[in-house]
C-alpha cells in the first residue's frame, strides 16, 4: 500500500523538464550506473553556467532530480557546483530510501561535470 510515490515537485519536474536537451558544443558529462544514465551539458562562460541541459534514462525520481539540479544551477557560478549535494534535492523530491543509490548517480555526474568545467577553464586559461 503506497502513498503517492511522486510528490508535486517530482511531478512538475518530470512533466515539464524545461532543461531537457543538449547544449551544442557545451561542456559534457556522462555517467552510467545501476541501469541509470545521465548526461549533462553546460554552456559556461566567465565562470557562469549560462545554460544547463540534461538527458536521463531512469525512474521518475532520477529524471526529476536531474531537471531540478539544472533549474537550481543554471545561471550560477560554476564554482558553486562545489556546494552541490544530493541531500536537499532528495528531500525536495521526497526520494524513497530504496532509490537513494540512484540519485547518487546524479552526484557522480555533477562531479564529472565540475571536472570537465575545470578542464575547460584550464584549457582556456592556457
Amino acid at each position, binding site marked *: 500500500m503506497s502513498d503517492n510515490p511522486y510528490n508535486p515537485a517530482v511531478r512538475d519536474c*518530470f*512533466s515539464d523538464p524545461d532543461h531537457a536537451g543538449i547544449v551544442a558544443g557545451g561542456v559534457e558529462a*556522462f555517467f552510467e550506473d545501476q541501469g541509470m*544514465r545521465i548526461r549533462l551539458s553546460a554552456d559556461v562562460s566567465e565562470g557562469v553556467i549560462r545554460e544547463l541541459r540534461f*538527458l536521463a*534514462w*531512469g*525512474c521518475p525520481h532520477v529524471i526529476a532530480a536531474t531537471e531540478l539540479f539544472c533549474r537550481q544551477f543554471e545561471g550560477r557560478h560554476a564554482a558553486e557546483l562545489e556546494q552541490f549535494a544530493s541531500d536537499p534535492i532528495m528531500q525536495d523530491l521526497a526520494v524513497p530510501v530504496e532509490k537513494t543509490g540512484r540519485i547518487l548517480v546524479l552526484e557522480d555526474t555533477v562531479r564529472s561535470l565540475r571536472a570537465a568545467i575545470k578542464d575547460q577553464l584550464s584549457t582556456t586559461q592556457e
Partner: protein
Amino acid sequence: MSEDADPVYLDYAATTPLSPQVAKRMRDVQENAWYNPSSSHQGGRISAAVVALAAEQLAALLSVDPTSLIWTSGATEADNLAITGTARQREHRGKHLVTMRTEHKAVVDVFRTLEKQNFDVTWLDPDADGHLPIERLEAALRDDTQLVSIMHVNNETGAIQDVAAIGTACKKRDIVLHVDGAQATGKIPVDLTNLPVNLYSLTAHKFYGPKGVGALFVADGTRIDPLMFGGGQQRRLRPGTLPVDLIAGLGEAAAVAAVSMLEDLEKLSELKSRLLAGIQDIEGLNINGPVEGGFPGILNVGVDGVEGESLLLALEPLCVATGSACNSQSQEPSYVLRALGRSDLEAQSAVRFSLGRPTTPADIDIAITLYRRAVGKLRKLAPKAVVQ
C-alpha cells in the same frame, strides 16, 4: 477517481468494478439475508438458500455440480488450498510436483514453500508465446509426480493454455491437475465437465464480482487437506462464517458472465485490434505473449529504450500495469516476461493494457495517444548508451 482529471482505466486484469447487477444483488442480500448461513434458525435458512442459489449460478457457468464448490477469500487462497492440500494429501505417494515459471505468485510462492519442505518441484518453461508445449510436460512427468498446476489464462500476457491436453496427460498417470482459472473464469468458456481437471481456482473480482471472495472447484473423488481449521463449514475443507453477500455477488457475477460472455469477447477482440493498430508502427515495439489466440482482454507490449516506471508516470492519467498487479509493488522486471525470453531491459518497459466490459473505443483512442506521446517523450529524454 479524483486525484487528477479524466483517468482512463485499462487495468481490468488487476481488478474490475462491480457489475450493476451484482451490486444490486449484494445490497439486497445485505438488507434481507444478512444472517449466518450456518445458523439453524429461520434467518440462517434464508441465508443458506442464498448461498445455495449462488452455488448453482457459479456451477452453471463452469458446468459442474454445485456441491463441488468450496468458497474461499479469493484465488490466492484457492491456489494455496489446492496446491498445499494436494501435496499434503498425496505426500505418502510421492513428492514430485510440476508447475510453470509463468504462474501467478499465488502459485509460484506456494511451490517455493513446498520446495523448502523437501518437495521436488519441476519448473517448466513456456515457449516464446507463453504456451506450454505438451511434450515438455510429458517429459517432466514421473512415477512419483502427484500434482501439476498450470494456469488457464496468463494474467500478464493473456496466453491460454491447452488445459484439455494437459489434463489428459495427467489423468493417464493418475496425477492431480490444478488449474488457476483466476483470469479465465467469467471471461472465456470453461466447461469443467468436459475438461479433465481436478481442481480449479477462481476469484470474483476479476469478472465484475466482489473482492474478497473466490472459489475452488474440487472434482468428485479428489481429496485435499484443509489449510485452515475450525467449525464444520464446507465439508471441513474451509472454515469460517460464510460471507453470504459476497457469495451472492460471486454467483450473480457468474450469471451475468454466462449471458454476456460471447458478446464481451467479441467486443474485446475489436478493441484489442484497434489498440494494436494504433501503436504497432512504433519503432521497436514488441508484443509480449501470443500475437494470435490469446485472451483478447490483454495486450502486453514493450518498447526499446524506455524505462518502465517513468513510462507508467508519463502515461498518466492512463491506469495500466507494468507487470502483474500483484508484482507492481516491486520494481523488478516481470519474471513471467523473463521466462518468455525477454531481457531485463525489455521486460521492464512492458505495459499491460487490459480491457474490460466498460471499455469504449474512445478509451482505446486516448490510450493510443497517451502511449505514443509517452514513448516519444522518454525516448527524446534518453541519452544514448555509452559503451564504457
